[in-house]
């Protein structure tokens, strides 16, 4: 049952450090070998912290990603509350790396209306730079804005949109 549990065994202890610098967590790791791997899970979370949309690569245990995204909200909340004190108008929407697990890296993004985007990326994917993550989030945000513009969409409902699906699909990694 504890499939999503923390892995207490790590290959190299030397690389571990509590100084986790956001956005640079995966630097220096060897490449996992995936060519154009992208996100493995993308979630949209409402202001009240319930999921509006969550989608993961079908090969993996879906529940695991639910847990991953769910727990990442703690960090998102913390970052938002820390940011609340900062200048509101100059606020950076991109939250950076929320936390790394041994297999994945979790990135966050929060809109001005406190809707959160969470993206889980395979940690073996070193090709993905911070800027690319940023642009992916921006694309997501644009797509989400399009959904909100749909007069038939009730804000707060689950997202059922083909165009959004396509968007997310294009960002998800191709399963080889």
């Amino acid at each position, binding site marked *: *049952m*504890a499939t*999503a*549990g*923390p*892995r*207490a*065994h*790590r290959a190299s*202890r*030397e690389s*571990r*450090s*509590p*100084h*986790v610098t956001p956005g640079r967590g995966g630097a220096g790791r060897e490449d996992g070998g995936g060519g154009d791997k992208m996100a493995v899970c993308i979630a949209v979370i*409402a202001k*009240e*912290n*319930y*999921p509006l949309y969550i989608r993961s690569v079908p090969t993996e245990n*879906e*529940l695991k990603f*639910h*847990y991953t995204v*769910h*727990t990442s*909200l*703690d*960090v998102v*909340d*913390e*970052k938002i509350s*820390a940011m609340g004190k900062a200048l509101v108008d100059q606020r950076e929407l991109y939250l950076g790396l929320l*936390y*790394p697990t*041994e297999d994945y890296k979790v990135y966050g993004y929060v809109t001005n209306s406190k809707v959160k985007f969470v993206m889980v990326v395979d940690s073996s994917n070193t090709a993905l730079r911070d800027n690319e993550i940023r642009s992916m989030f921006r694309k997501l945000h644009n797509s989400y804005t399009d959904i909100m513009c749909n007069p038939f969409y009730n804000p*707060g409902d689950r997202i059922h949109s083909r165009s959004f699906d396509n968007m997310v699909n294009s960002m998800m990694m191709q399963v080889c």
Partner: protein
Amino acid sequence: MSVPDYMQCAEDHQTLLVVVQPIGIVPEESFFRIYKRISAVSQVNVRDSQRVLYIRYRHHYPPENNEWGDFQTHRKVVGLITITDCSSAKDWPQTFEKFHVQKEMYGSTLYDSRLFVFGLQGEIAEQPRTDVAFYPSYDECETVEKRIEDFIESLFIVLESKRLDRATDKSGDKIPLLCVPFEKKDFVGLDTDSRHYKKRCQGRMRKHVGDLCLQAGMLQDSLVHYHMAVELLRSVNDFLWLGAALEGLCSASVIYHYPGGTGGKVGSRRAQGGSLSAEAGNRHRPGALTSNGINADTSAEIGRAKNCLSPEDIIDKYKEAISYYGKYKNAGVIELEACVKAVRVLAIQKRSMEASEFLQNAVYINLRQLSEEEKIQRYSILSELYERIGFHRKSAFFKRIAAMQCAAPSIPEPGWRACYKLLLETLPGYSLSLDPKDFSKGTHRGWAAVQMRLLHELVYASRRMGNPALCVRHLSFLLQTMLDFLSDQEKKDVTQSLESYTAKCPGTMEFITLPDGLKLPPVPFTKLPIVRSVKLLNLPTSLRPHKMKSLLGQNVATKSPFIYSPIIAHSRGEERNKKIDFQWVQGDVCEVQLMVYNPMPFELRVENMGLLTTGVEFESLPAALSLPAESGLYPVTLVGVPQTTGQITVNGYHTSVFGVFSDCLLDNLPGVKTNGCTVEVIPALPRLQISTSLPRSAHTLQPSSGDEISTNVSVQLYNGETQQLIIKLENIGTEPLEKLEVTAKTVNTKEKLYGDFLSWKLEDTISQFPLKPGKIATFTVNIKVKLDFSCQENLLQDLSDDGISVSGLPLSSPFRQVVKPRVETKPINPQESSKVGDFSHVKTLEAILNFKYSGGPGHVEGYYRNLSLGLHVEVEPSVFFTRVSTLPATSTRQCHLLLDVFNSTEHELTISARNNEDLILHAGECQRMAIQVDKFSFESFPDSPADGTQFANAKQLEEERQQAKGLEINSKLDICWKIPSLKREGEASVEGVLNQLVLEHLQLAPLQWDILVDGKLCDCDIVVDCKVGDPIPLEVKLTNWSKHSVGPFALTVTPYQDYQNGVHNYELQDAITFVGSNTFYIESVKPTKDSVYFGALLFLYTGDFYLNIKFHEDNCSKELPVSWFCLPSVHIRAMEPVVQTQL
């Protein structure tokens, strides 16, 4: 060192570790009672100084951890207290021996030890010893605390001496190298004289002194020592010890900055210690610090405050220390504990992000293979720490893993109870509440997939705990709240397991209280089935109570002084929303209709579904239903019987689905439509059941008035037939029937109906009242159908070729037609046989009999019930009068009515009229019958509109008049038909047949002409005898019955002879002479007056003579109808005067 102490916090660095252990057989309860008292003494103010000693007590401490005591002195067991139970003196030596053995275990590090002996009395107990204390029993040991304080003081003395010993040890003497267990072999053969080695020794010793200072309550000194140690060790790259020195620096700074402690409310020990250490902390403030002169390091005086790390630096130094520890695999526990300590500090600083990084790191620290218990402990403490930094979700995540670990398959005896308890604690983290009300408030807001998993785990854990009730509760909660998120297969699985659990323990509506006080509210299945609307139904029409009109009027009058006010009506509108405008009746089955649907992908069996009500004693009659898979809206009717009167409110319903009993209150259901739930129950009324002599009808009457008919009966009658309908009234209620009123209403008025359709006598029935319950009364109704006997347009074309006109103008002899009846069998030619069907066209008549009845207490309250009986009469045609005409009779006062009668039945039929013999008609036969009737003078009716009233009125009046005339004519005719083969008979009416022309003919002319010949009144068939040669007086008398004056008229009398061969001989001048003129002149006659004119005739020859009296064609006569001038013809037989011949 392998066993991490997850409870450690920074302030533990200043404590002295004392192990309290039992030896021999000590009851656990007693031991912990003493242990508790001992551990209460956690802070001691040392005599002669303001320093405070902190003590950490352990009842279990692994000796291998003790070996790390040089590395961090708070890990060193410095005191041992053993507790033993010794009842007799002879056991004493043995016990004492054990004490020594125990001391050996921690022997190398112990400063001092104590033995507490309980139960021993006598001489051994008398002897004063410092290391042993005797107490007669566990209850009589008041001096334990005092003893402990003394013991701690002795520890302090040793500590202080050691500190001073080490601190002053600054000479060039060789400083021993302190090392941790795993280092020992590394230093074998190392050059002990090297500068490097010496520095290392110094640094480590400095650090050790710092530890001792900290323990001895000399915070500032310790800071100085640590700083020096850091410098020394950094220069020699002794990373492990550098880490320890840095951590010591951090600990001391934390103690300085956070006198409240960082452990929080982990244990009572902390909480208690925290409050005291606050004041202790004040004492350590730089200004308040008193240097007690033993401080050998003069540099301590300089920049005291600077030595202490700032809060930010603490974290930096912790990070550094941990990174150094990380270099050594064997120092995993140290690193882990350092992480935990740092997290606690960060939690106080509210720097959650950094804390989470430390924790994240701690997660990855790999110790040796952990036992299951240690894993649980590890995950729980992680959860607790995450909770502390506000990461509730992460905390829940780890707690859940800990819970799962409790029941891991590798554990021989899974701790389901602990697992369940831990799982419950994770609920808030997953924003899950076990109260279904929180869910019904709106749409689901949460992580369904994750929450579902947790609920499944709760179900499983509670089942394995052997608590089926709990298991059922969780499973029903899962089904109720997560229904929308379950897949079809999951729904099936969940319900299947639910059913198997409820077979053992049915789900109830009671709260389940867990041992730790948590209450699990009941879970009503409001979604199985989903109720969309609740509608209280009125009673069936026949049972519906009605308020007596008069009483209702009174009520309204007393309520408001106004007859009508829109304002009041408006304000009542709101009230009406809640209250329903019909009533239920006590003792009668009342119904509530629910529109439900089954959201499940399989058939849903709902058992024991009934109503929940308040206000009135209500006997609910539960129903069981089975809803097809994913049914649409499905009506369900729940019934019950109110036993008392008053207001009843339907609050909800109860069900039993999958073995779970649910009480669903409407207030808690979202999106339920209702027409109000409160209805009045009025006192009981009797119930009437009707049965009739007639068969029940399949036809249902749907009258527009909205009355609903409970019973329908139908009867087939021939037109004109009369039938008795016997109605049995049975009181099937429980109240006596006291009142009955009957009214009838004909529904289908398309057909013209003659005579009374329904007639009855109520008196006979009323005489049987009051009708006791179960008794029967009878009531008789006569049904008489008399529809139009004419066949309207059906025969018109058939008649067009008929030579005989209906004009009724005098023809030579009416008798011919009667004698020679027109046999109408010939029209049955192929063409017309199809038309026969039209004659047999069945007409229907429908009527409603209303029975208003009342009785019992309901009658007193002014209520009654209305029962309707629908009557459906199919009228088959019996006979038709296909044509009607008149022929003048021989008398002008009489007339022949000629009726062509058509038998449209399939049976032989006889028809009779008054004074006529029976006429036999075969099926489909048409015959003419002639009835001689006296002409009618319709004087009793208004003759004509008196003056120019409205035209429509005039027409109506005309119709009415015609109807009345028809009625009168019919009553005279008395035509009856009889079907002998069926033994049925009835009347036939000509009312509808008569037309204006016929009526005119049947009417007596208003001008009455009387002709008297020889003083005798002449009429058509009267032959007047007279003698030849005698003058015969002729008298013409005109009586005017009309309303206007008539005349003047001129009449000419023309005699003629009829040769009976169609030849009339008018050449009779030589046979008859007139005495006087043969022309009469009549002056105008006023209404109701008469005038008489006389003349005379003289017959010259014998013979039969006729007199034809003709009017002169002049203007006035043309204004009046011809029939008014219908004078009887006069037949005179002139004979030889017999007397003369004889003479």
